[in-house]
Every structure is written in structure tokens, then in C-alpha cells.
């Protein structure tokens, strides 16, 4: 069963189309016998200003879906519409430029928009503060820990000031506390900028904490299994009982799905 759009999302979407729409999108890597079907007729909308979380087993095609939406790859079949203006993406790896300092990495996001040098620097410092890395601007990526690199990548994605934000496990390498802090920051920015977010995570609570909807993908090939509206009032807390309860239900469904595929 596929859940209908939630009222909230329907509200938001009113008047204008969804920010991102996938219609029966399939993606095949390779061809013939050695080919691998990563996505199988996935249909999914992300309303304007909506926060959609994507859950699914490892290797089910979440990253693939994101790179299709970003236009980095072409679907084998189906249509993708992305009306939401500029798209920013945070990859599963930090993908920082090793030859630039941390600050310059973030400034690169502003460069394409013609921001002046001084302002770039100031904005980069701001975003570094946002991800709790103030004072690390002059370091190079290889001097950072894994989690710190991930946060720089987050800062870079946020600095782009895009309308659609695609995030691939952005908080995977962070401890619970830092994660909580960044949840708050992300929620704040999402609200302020009225962003549309497509957010991949393995942490069900995180998905419930952040999302307007939680979309569940099946194991390889990825297919939309279920679309859970999250109607809890914001601000939510990751360790609140309601989030835990909702997360529990989704986890059960996810487990069921994974088991069905014998994995």
C-alpha cells in the first residue's frame, strides 16, 4: 500500500507543482546478464518545501536515486522532473577537494554564484560555525577526522543556497550529540529557506525526527514500498517517546521488507 500525500505536504504543494517528481523511474547499471537493476519503476514526489526521508536496506538504490534527481546520471526508463530551481547535493562520501583548505572548499560553493571574495570568506566562516567547526577553516581535509569532513561537506552543501537539497546519509559518521545539534540547525535552515529536502538515512529515528514523510524502499531493485506521513508536531526530539513509537512501526515494516527478500 502506498500512502497518499499528507495534508501538510498537499498544502505546501498547493498552487505549484512538486519540487521533484519521479515517474516510473528505472535505473539499470551495465547491460544484459551482468547488468544490475538498481531502481525499478520508482515514482516519488517531493513537494515544494517538503522534507522527505528515504529509508532502505544497504544497496537498495538510494544513492542512485539521488544522483538521478541531481542530474548526474540518466535513468534507463521513466521521467524525472525537477522544477525546484537550484539543486544542491551532499554525497555519501565527503568529496572535498583535497587541494583546498576547509574554508576554500566551502567558498567554492559561493564562487559559482559570483559572491565577492570577502563575503565568501565571511559566509564560509559562518557555515563552519553552523556545523561546529569554527576555527578549522585553515586546515586541509586530510587533517580532519571522518566526522569533521562530513560536517564540512554539509556546510558546503548548505552554502550553495539551493532550493532543493539532496542529502546522502549526511550524519552517518557523527556522534548522537553532534547529530542532535545538527538536526536542529538543519531544521532551522529548512524552515528559513523553505527548502525541499530529500534525505537518505539508515537511522529510522532520525528520519522520523526530521521528515514530513518517510519513504521506504525495498531491497534491490529499489521500489517504493510504503510512504509514511509523519504528523508529529515540530520541534520533535529524537529521544522522545512519540518519535520512538513511530520509528518502531517503520522499523517493523522495514524488517518485514528486508526479511521478505531473504536478507
Amino acid at each position, binding site marked *: 500500500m502506498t500512502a497518499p500525500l499528507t495534508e501538510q505536504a498537499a498544502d505546501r504543494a498547493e498552487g505549484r507543482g512538486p519540487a521533484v517528481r519521479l515517474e516510473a523511474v528505472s535505473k539499470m*547499471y551495465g*547491460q544484459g546478464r551482468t547488468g544490475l537493476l538498481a531502481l525499478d519503476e520508482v515514482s516519488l514526489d517531493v513537494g515544494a518545501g517538503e522534507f522527505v526521508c528515504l529509508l532502505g536496506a544497504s544497496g537498495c538504490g538510494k544513492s542512485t536515486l539521488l544522483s538521478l534527481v541531481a*542530474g*548526474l*546520471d*540518466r*535513468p*534507463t*526508463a*521513466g*521521467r*524525472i*522532473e*525537477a*522544477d525546484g530551481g537550484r539543486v544542491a547535493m551532499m554525497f555519501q562520501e565527503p568529496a572535498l577537494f583535497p587541494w583546498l583548505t576547509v574554508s576554500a572548499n566551502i567558498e567554492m560553493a559561493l564562487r559559482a554564484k559570483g559572491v565577492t571574495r570577502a563575503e565568501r570568506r565571511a559566509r564560509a566562516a559562518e557555515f563552519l560555525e553552523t556545523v561546529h567547526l569554527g576555527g578549522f577553516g585553515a586546515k586541509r581535509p586530510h587533517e580532519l577526522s571522518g566526522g569533521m569532513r562530513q560536517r564540512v561537506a554539509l556546510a558546503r552543501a548548505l552554502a550553495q543556497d539551493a532550493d532543493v537539497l539532496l542529502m546522502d546519509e549526511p550524519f552517518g559518521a557523527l556522534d548522537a550529540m553532534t547529530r542532535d545539534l545538527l538536526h536542529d540547525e538543519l531544521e532551522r535552515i529548512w524552515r528559513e529557506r523553505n527548502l525541499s529536502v530529500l534525505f537518505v538515512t539508515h537511522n529510522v529515528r532520525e528520519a522520523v525526527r526530521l521528515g514530513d514523510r518517510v519513504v521506504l524502499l525495498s531491497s534491490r531493485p529499489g521500489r517504493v514500498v510504503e510512504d509514511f506521513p509523519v504528523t508529529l508536531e515540530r520541534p520533535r526530539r529524537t529521544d522522545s517517546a512519540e518519535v520512538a513509537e513511530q520509528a518502531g512501526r517503520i522499523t517493523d515494516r522495514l524488517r518485514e521488507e528486508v526479511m521478505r527478500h531473504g536478507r
Partner: protein
Amino acid sequence: MSVDAGTRSGDVHARQLAGLDALELTTRQRRGLASRIWSGIWPIASAVALVLVAWQLVVLAGWWPEYVFAGPVTTLGVLAERLGEAEFYTAVTVTMRRAVAGFALAIAVGLVVGALVSRIRPLRRAVGSLITGLQTMPSIAWFPLAILLFGLTESAIMFVVVLGAAPSIANGLIAGVDYTPPILLRAGHMLGLRRLRLYRHVILPASLPSFLAGLKQGWAFAWRSLMAGELLVIIANQPSLGEQLHFARELADSPGLLATMIVILVIGIVVDLLFGAADNALRRRWGLRQAAD
């Protein structure tokens, strides 16, 4: 705005994709064999045609008499004539044999030297820079030494070729080693690979792209050294391309010179295609190219 699989419209998203096309990032539909061959051939064919036309135009403009700068017709005539003679094939065979043998030797030497120099710090300090120094030494400077060591034999030619090519190959390897990602070295180390085995299983494969580039440069050096070295010892009954090139110039034989240059270019291009094939295979394996282009 929208993107259908296969077709594109002129909107922002599609333009992004077009941008990516240039980046060779997208996997593209596999095309028919005929169309792939065609797309491989037309650029080359048109480039050749363009060059020939430009060349003919220059000649027609009459800035220089034909005996100073021969036109394509004359030159191709001479070339065709040569292609009909057995001597041409002997010359190409002799030269290619020397080039391949010398290059193989240079690879062996370059590999050993590069491996040693890149891993042993005092050695690197001592002779690291010497390698580039040797690279800049013109072949003719080695001729006297070559003859002292090897007399008037083919070994003297080989000596010059190896001295020309080995430094490039060593340098390519050293650059590759220097730029091996430390995380892979650490991973190899943790897997219990030490010294030679670390070298063989981690460093060498990780340096392969740079090493391949070094090989390509090394080939160019080997070939140029050979062209010069073939004058060093002119061995009985062994015509060679280097000799032909030299004589064409000595005799102010413009069509002959141009014909020899074409032969050298074609050989260079064929060799480059071989390197290119190796390079493509490498990049495909490493996931650096995804399209079937």
C-alpha cells in the same frame, strides 16, 4: 522541465546533462557497431583530409618551390613507391626491432631504478635529481661513451636508447609512488604486506596510471634516441628509418624527408593507440570511465 530517458529537451536540467556529457559521466546507450566505428573514424579521416588540403593549399600558394617544400602529391607518390620496395620493410623491421628491444630493456632498467630510488631515501637524495639530469642529456653526448663501451655494434645503439628512455620510465614510476594514496598504503600495511610485496600488490598497481604515462614518454625518448643512434653504427645490410631520415635531410630530399616523417608519425600514432588501449582498460577497471565510448 523534464528529462526523458534517451531524449532531451532544452531546459536547465537537460543542459546540466549536456554539461555532464562533456564530463563523460553519464552512462550512455550502447550504439550499433557501425555507428561506433564511424564515430571513431570520421574525426581522424577529417583531420587527415584537413591537413592534406591545407598542405596542398600552401604548396599551391607557391611560397616555396616544390624542391624546398614538396606537396602532398609528390610526397605520397614517393611514399607509395617506397611501400612497394622490400627495403622499406626491412628498414621498418630493423628499426622497430631495435626500438622494442631497447624499450623493453629501458623498462626493466627504469623499473628497477625507479623502485629503488622511490623507496630508499638516501638513494633518492643521492641520485633522485640525477634522473632528470640524465633525461636532459642529448643522445649525441652519449655516443663516444657508447662506442667505448660497446664498439661498433648494435649494443651501442641500445645503450643510447636505454639511456634515453629509462629515466622517463623511472620518473613516471617515482611520481606514481609519490602520489599513491596513503590510505591504500596503510591498508596494505595492515594486510601484512611489507616491502617487496607491498610494492608489488599496492604501490605498483596504484602507480600504474602515472607509470603508463611515463612509459609513453619513455617510448618517445627511446624512439628519438634511436633515430639519432641509428647513425652511430651503420650496420651492414641493415637499412633503418633513422638512416633514411638522416639521408633524406643530408640529400635535401624534401619529399623523401616528408615521406619518412609520415612513416614516423604513423608508427608513433599506432604505438599511441596501443598505449591508449591499455589506458582505457585501466580506467575502465578503476571505474574512471563508465561510458562505452
